[in-house]
Every structure is written in structure tokens, then in C-alpha cells.
């Protein structure tokens, strides 16, 4: 707390305006870990436009609503029709709504890092106790958390709805847990890719376009090739091709290990052995994007 000098208020003489002068600060200085947490919470809030202008709240909030709305409708239908299972699996939800997730990453990854680069705020951070690794970790964790909130919230809606519709508790809980693991992986992967692409350019517009390109072009290419491979009956190739786009990667991981039905053509997900490769590639990509971000920010000094 700042020290209060007794001269600040003089009882009985309140009409005078006092210049209370400079007050020094003798309170605690919480250091590097606290600064990193502060950057994390500021970035996480920023990813939903909190603490920023009203205009910057519109898109993330809108996408959040769009993300949750189908879940709400499904729950309403399930409750109304007394269905004995949800119209969509927990693990399929993010895959079906991948366009919304991509749009969110594309809009928020650049606002998280490109802004700091463009307005040269990064050097100010490094004139504080934090270091490169703290900055990268805080930003990575913040965007991954924001994505997790975006992708896990509708699953929670589905789960609560399923319990209200009195569907089987054990079944639903298992599906919900599998869904959460899947979207956690997805959040880490998408956050990493989005941040790496966005951190290359200080221009937000380029960042948005580049992230969308990386996510949708790879998906478009991969799903086209998979469809061709499927028509030609080379189902082995379908699984391997799926390694080359982020969303099919997640799809592969969850259909191999998280009880999901694959969205791959023919519905044939990777086998267990192939699934191991999927997991390794996913984890490798997450670690790789983190490494790339560290390298990128080593070069951004004062």
C-alpha cells in the first residue's frame, strides 16, 4: 500500500485544496511469477475483449454464443423428445463446429501477439522482471485457456442437458470426460499454431488471413485427398493423410483413443498403431510451436 502522509487531510480546514505531493511505495513487489500471472489474466480477458474497447468484445462474444447455441438447441430437443441419447457425441461437437473455432483463433491470436509487436509494447514487458519464456508461456496459456473455454462450454451445456434429460449418467460422464480431453488437446494445438503464425507479422489483418489459411487450406487439402483415397479404396492412405491438418489430427487422436467415431471418409479412423503416431505428431506440434515462439521472441528485445 502506498504510504499516506498525514498532511493529505487537515481536519477542520476542508476548503483548501491540498497538493498531497508524491507518495512513495513501500509495499510488496511480487516479482516475476506474479507478473507472468498478470500477463496471463490480462491476455485471457483480452481474448474475450474484456478490458478493451466495446468494439473488440463483439466478435469473440458472438463466436462464443454461436458455439454454445447448437448445444442449447440439441439439449432442448433431447429433453423435449425424451430421446435416449444426444443427437451429437461430445467428441464430434468441436469437429462439426471447427469453422467457428478456426475463426476464433484467427481473430484472437493476432490480437494477442500482433498488437504487442505492432505497437512495440513487447520491449516494455521485457523492461519488467519477466523474461522471454514468461511472455511466451503467459500468451500461450492464455490463448489455450480461451480456446478451452470456447470449446468446453458447449460440452458442459450438453452434459448438464443430458443429465436433465435423465440420460445414463455413467455413459454421459465418460463421453463428457473424453470430450474435455479432446478439446484440451485441440486448444493447445490450435493456440500454438495460431500464435506462431500471428507472431510473424505485426499486421493484424495479415495475421488473421494467415491463420485462417493455415487452418482451412490444410483441412480442405487433406479432406479432398482423403476423399480421393477413399474412392480408390486405399483406406490405409486415408489415415496417413489425416496427419497433415490440425483438425483431422485431433479427429484421429480421439477416434483412436477417446471412443469417438471418425469423421474421415468411410468412417474409418486410424488404427491403434496409427493412433500412436497421431498422438506423437500432435504433441510434437504443440512442443514445436512453443519452441518456435521462444525463438521468435529471443529476437525481440528493446
Amino acid at each position, binding site marked *: 500500500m502506498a504510504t499516506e502522509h498525514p498532511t493529505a487531510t487537515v481536519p477542520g480546514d476542508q476548503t483548501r485544496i491540498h497538493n498531497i505531493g508524491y507518495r512513495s511505495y513501500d509495499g510488496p513487489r*511480487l516479482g516475476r511469477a*506474479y507478473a507472468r500471472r*498478470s500477463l496471463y489474466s490480462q491476455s485471457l480477458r483480452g481474448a474475450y475483449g474484456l478490458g478493451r474497447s466495446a468494439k473488440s468484445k463483439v466478435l469473440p462474444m458472438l463466436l462464443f454464443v454461436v458455439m454454445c447455441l447448437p448445444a442449447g438447441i440439441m439439449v432442448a430437443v433431447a429433453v423435449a423428445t425424451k430421446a435416449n441419447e444426444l443427437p451429437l457425441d461430445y467428441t464430434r461437437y468441436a469437429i462439426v463446429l471447427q469453422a467457428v473455432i478456426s475463426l476464433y483463433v484467427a481473430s484472437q491470436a493476432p490480437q494477442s501477439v500482433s498488437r504487442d509487436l505492432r505497437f512495440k509494447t513487447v520491449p*516494455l514487458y521485457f*523492461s519488467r522482471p519477466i523474461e522471454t519464456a514468461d511472455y511466451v508461456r503467459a500468451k500461450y496459456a492464455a490463448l489455450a485457456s480461451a480456446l478451452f473455454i470456447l470449446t468446453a462450454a458447449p460440452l458442459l451445456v450438453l452434459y448438464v442437458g443430458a443429465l436433465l434429460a435423465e440420460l445414463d449418467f455413467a455413459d454421459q460422464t465418460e463421453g463428457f470426460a473424453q470430450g474435455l480431453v479432446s478439446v484440451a488437446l485441440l486448444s493447445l494445438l490450435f493456440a500454438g499454431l495460431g500464435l506462431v503464425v500471428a507472431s510473424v507479422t505485426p499486421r493484424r489483418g495479415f495475421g488473421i488471413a494467415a491463420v485462417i489459411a493455415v487452418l482451412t487450406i490444410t483441412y480442405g487439402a487433406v479432406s479432398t485427398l482423403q476423399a480421393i483415397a477413399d474412392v480408390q479404396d486405399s483406406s490405409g492412405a486415408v489415415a496417413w493423410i489425416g496427419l497433415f491438418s490440425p483438425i483431422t489430427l485431433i479427429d484421429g487422436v480421439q477416434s483412436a483413443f477417446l471412443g469417438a467415431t471418425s469423421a474421415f471418409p468411410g468412417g474409418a479412423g486410424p488404427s491403434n498403431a496409427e493412433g500412436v503416431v497421431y498422438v506423437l505428431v500432435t504433441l510434437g506440434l504443440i512442443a514445436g510451436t512453443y519452441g518456435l515462439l521462444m525463438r521468435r521472441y529471443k529476437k525481440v528485445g*528493446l
Partner: protein
Amino acid sequence: MGVTVIVTESLSKRFPRVTALDRLSVDIGPGVTGLVGANGAGKSTLIKILLGLSPATEGRAEVLGLDVATKGADIRERVGYMPEHDCLPPDVSATEFVVHMARMSGLPPTAARERTADTLRHVGLYEERYRPIGGYSTGMKQRVKLAQALVHDPQLVFLDEPTNGLDPVGRDEMLGLIRRIHTDFGISVLVTSHLLGELERTCDHVVVVDGGKLLRSSSTTDFTQTTTTLAIEVTDTDEHPDGTRAVRDALHARGVTVEDGSGLPGAGHILLLTAAGDETYDLVRDVIADLGLGLVRMEQRRHHISEVFKDNDAARKEAVGHGN
């Protein structure tokens, strides 16, 4: 606070193709210190090393008694930094931004808010602090930059070219503010500039670097004596149809070298001479009064740092020549 705030001992920084700092040894005490040098003289490199962000190739340095090589994070907690370039996001308010930077310096949330309100008021930002920074004038932005450097109540601040881009009034206000940082807030200041003139008036001590080498380090009064240039303009009278020339001759007779202010507005009517101290002003006044001329103006001219380098030796000789 100790007697020295910054010490460097044969501090060198070499990049593959350029030597930014060349065995720089300085000893800077509390107060306002000016770090003067042309662009590329090594000022920013020095600040970077002193913040513990860039290792020195050779030599050592201490800030507030902490070694820059090992105690970087501790130094950065106690030191403020105002960069030369723009560093403010336009879509947040000054309050929002400065609170965030206070927390980044380790201040708990409540203290961060209190200190932000105080600091913004001290640098002269009032109602506008709730508006987005994008709409601020250059002068207001400079104040926000200064506020974020002071918000955690550092023991020392590095101000990199704080008067850049300001109009004369804004410049004077900023210099006054810098003076107050030491006198009222008790914070030591290292301020860089490529204009020696403005630092003379603000600083207790001036360090001049050129090409990464220490050119000079002395208290401001020493500096003023050898470097202040006076510009004089006088009227003509019937007795002296060319008053300018009459003054020049009279000053020459007293042993003062005078130059024409060629290249300046009003060239031919302006005389430039080097002032060694108060006695030069008196001399000029007496000479002009004796001739019966009117003194239109007598003003200190601001030095650009390159002039100091060029005229350094000549000026010193002159000063010695006519000072006695």
C-alpha cells in the same frame, strides 16, 4: 541509496560488424544525469545492458549496486524505462494500460490502481486518462510513457529521448517534469538526448558518448562554461551605420572571437560568440552600451551534439583565451 547509482568499468559491446560500446567507464551518482550522443553513439545499447537484457562483451556494470550480468530481474523491478519509440496500444485507456504495467512490475492489484491514479496526476493527465490512448496528442502520449516508467516507484528511471517529437512548449514541460522526478519524487534519472542544449538546463551531470566511447563526463556547470553559444543582434545608429560590424570590431579589440551567423535567418545581422560565463554577458552588455547601440536580442543557442564534437577543442581554447 548509495553514492553511485550506475557504475560501468571498461564496458564493451561488440556486434559482428560494429562496436557499439568501447571500454566505457563511467560513474554516475544520484540526481539527473544526461546521456548525450549522436544517433548510433551507443546510448540505447548502454541502456539495454544496464537493464540486464543484453550481455556485455567485456567489462562489467552495476545498477543500484546490483550486477547487470546476474541480477537483471532485480534491477528491472527497481528501475523504470521509457522507450524512445511509441509503445502504447491505441485501443485501451491510459489508466487501463498503466495499471497493467504496474502489475507487470509486481505491484498487487489494489496498489497498482492507486499508484496509477497518483502517477497519471503527477505527469499531468486528468480526465483524459479514461479515454483510449489512440486519441491522445504526442505530448499526452509521452506523459503516459513516462507514467508507466514511474508507476512502480522505481529508484532510477531511464528516459530515452523523452522530448522527441514535442513542440517547444511540450519540450519545456517535459524537461520540467524530468527535473521534478528527482527534486520532488526523489528518483534518480538517466535521460538521453542528442540535443546538449536542453540537457544543460535540466541535468546535474552530463555524460557525452560518441562512437561508443566516453567523450566527456562532467557536471553541467563545467559544460555550460565551455559550450554555450550566444547569438547577438543589435540595431544600427547614425553614428554606427553598421552596428553589427561595430560590435564585432569592439569585441575583437577585447580579445573575443566572434563569428557571423551565416546560414541562420537574419544572417549578416547576427553575431555568434562563445560564452565562458557570466562575465561574457557583462562584457557584451558593456560593449554595446558604450557604442550606444540597441540590443535586439541576446540568446543562448541550443547546441546540436555534432557541433560539440566539431567545436569541442576550438571552443575550449577560445574559452580559455578570453575567459581571463
